[in-house]
């Protein structure tokens, strides 16, 4: 993986050329730095993947096994069928897709109103943004009491609705930034031609925002798929998302590292695939639209 970093860049060179000798030295220092960085940041991921295909005899050896002799895929079947990984995938998928879908509809509408009409002024924007930064634990107690009063602790509904508290603000903020960058003339000409506001939004704005919508939805899906602290507070074992299952696997006497790694890999895989599909949008999405690259 880190081999790609060692390949020298092509004729394009650094954007701000200096004296050739110093540029060369700096370039090599940069390549070494990036290579070390990749090694450090990717090693734990490699370790997880390699542990997930090790036979039990290689889980707890000293020295550790870095390259297994054979690939042992039974960890994955154990994780899926003995540890409830399959149900975890279904629960995580259901909760993440539902929260993302509802959050996208409500968040996009709100974003459009905030961007085009400045509705509610900065106060409403501020209110929505500040919810993104609320530590879930800080509202944990009333949240728990609320759902238990309704008899809905440990249900999909509770998780989906509770996940909206960060999905809607996230979608609203990122989409607000995109709408602000979208020129208004096409909407205005549609309005002049007699379209209603809703028509203009549906027929003109949304098609133009399609790439942004897809990127935002996928990022929202990642956050929902990964969510852990609310799941810990609101689940008791009936609704088990993948991040929730992992800690329950530590409770046995003999730590089943292979099974745990396989479960972690199942949780990581969809997210990593999405990240590579989304390369261009990651920065903007992850900074809640604060940093607009490109």
């Amino acid at each position: 993986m880190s081999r790609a970093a060692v390949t020298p860049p092509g004729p394009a060179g650094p954007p701000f050329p200096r004296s050739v000798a110093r540029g060369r030295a700096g370039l090599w220092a940069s390549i070494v730095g990036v290579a070390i960085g990749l090694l450090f940041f990717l090693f734990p991921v490699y370790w997880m993947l390699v542990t997930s295909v090790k036979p039990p005899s290689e889980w707890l050896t000293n020295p550790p096994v870095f390259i297994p002799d054979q690939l042992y895929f039974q960890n994955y079947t154990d994780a899926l069928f003995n540890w409830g990984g399959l149900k975890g995938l279904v629960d995580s998928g259901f909760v993440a897709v539902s929260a993302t879908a509802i959050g996208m509809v409500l968040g996009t509408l709100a974003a459009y109103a905030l961007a085009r009409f400045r509705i509610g002024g900065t106060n409403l924007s501020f209110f929505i943004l500040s919810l993104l930064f609320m530590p879930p634990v800080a509202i944990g107690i009333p949240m728990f009491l609320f759902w238990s009063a309704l008899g809905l602790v440990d249900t999909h509904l509770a998780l989906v609705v509770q996940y909206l508290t960060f999905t809607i603000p996230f979608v609203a903020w990122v989409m607000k930034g995109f709408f602000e960058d979208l020129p208004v003339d096409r909407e205005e000409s549609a309005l002049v031609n007699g379209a209603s506001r809703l028509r203009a939004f549906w027929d003109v704005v949304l098609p133009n925002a399609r790439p942004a919508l897809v990127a935002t939805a996928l990022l929202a899906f990642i956050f929902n798929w990964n969510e852990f602290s609310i799941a810990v507070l609101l689940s008791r074992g009936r609704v088990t998302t993948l991040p929730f299952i992992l800690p329950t696997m530590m409770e046995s006497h003999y730590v089943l590292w292979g099974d745990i790694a396989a479960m972690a890999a199942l949780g990581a895989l969809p997210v990593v695939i999405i990240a590579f599909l989304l390369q261009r949008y990651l920065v903007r999405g992850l900074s809640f639209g604060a940093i607009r690259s490109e």
Partner: protein
Amino acid sequence: MTALARRRSRWSGGRRFALLAVLPATLVLVALSIFPLLYSLRLSFTDQQLLSLLPARFVGLANYAQLLQDRLFWSSLLVTAAFAASVVTVQLGVGLALALALRRMPRYQQFLATLLLIPSILSSSVASFQWRSLFDYSSGPLNFFLGALHLPLLAWTADPRLALPSLILVDFWQWTPFVTLLLLAGLHALPAPVFEAARVDGSTGWQLLRYQTLPLLRRVIAITVILRLIGAFKVFDIIYVLTAGGPGSTTESLAFYNYVQGFRYFSVGYSAAMSYVSVILVIVLARAILGYMERPVGRAAAPDATGEAAV
């Protein structure tokens, strides 16, 4: 542009459409946040216990007064502050170095940056388990490397002095790539002419960085700092999995101590009071971030820049 759009919206009934568009989201958010916040405000003035049959009594500000005398509360505040300070400074420094390095390799940049970003997009639950296995005393790779270098083995999260630094290492691993990417995006947005002029003046690379690049990156750095500060403030997941606040209370952050009081000791009223203190701290931080985010992006001397600065 927006002023014009606003004027037009008046006569085309856009305002009503906008209200209807923003209403559902606002209602959901108000119901799910304002309600719990008001409810916990009320709880914070009572001695409510979750599993107690006794009715809750109104105790006024007693919970808040107790908070001020709670040694564990202050130590959790200290843990959070130490965590936040190390997280922000170290991640910013290394992130900047990596971003500057990545900028010099334009051809593979996007691919490399995405590879690098993998830790930041993993669930913190998944990340914590990777590190739990790496930290393992007798069979973990970290101690194997230490042993290979003839260094003493470390107990990592089980050692009271090392537990917090270990968590800081995990957070460093998970969030430095994210910081790198933010700063890289900031570097790309810099105006090239400034650098050409400085180069003609004969500035060295270091001078360029110190007097040109860093001041121009001010806004991106501010956003990064605030995002990471808030992240550090929320930290709960990696503590839950890796140390559960221990050994002792050496890694008990504000969020985690809050959880312990509410969900382990069931001191609901007390926990609610602590939540309130946290929420106020977060609002102050969020207010700061909004101040930066609402400013125009990279367009120098926008007409409304001074007006927005007052927000």
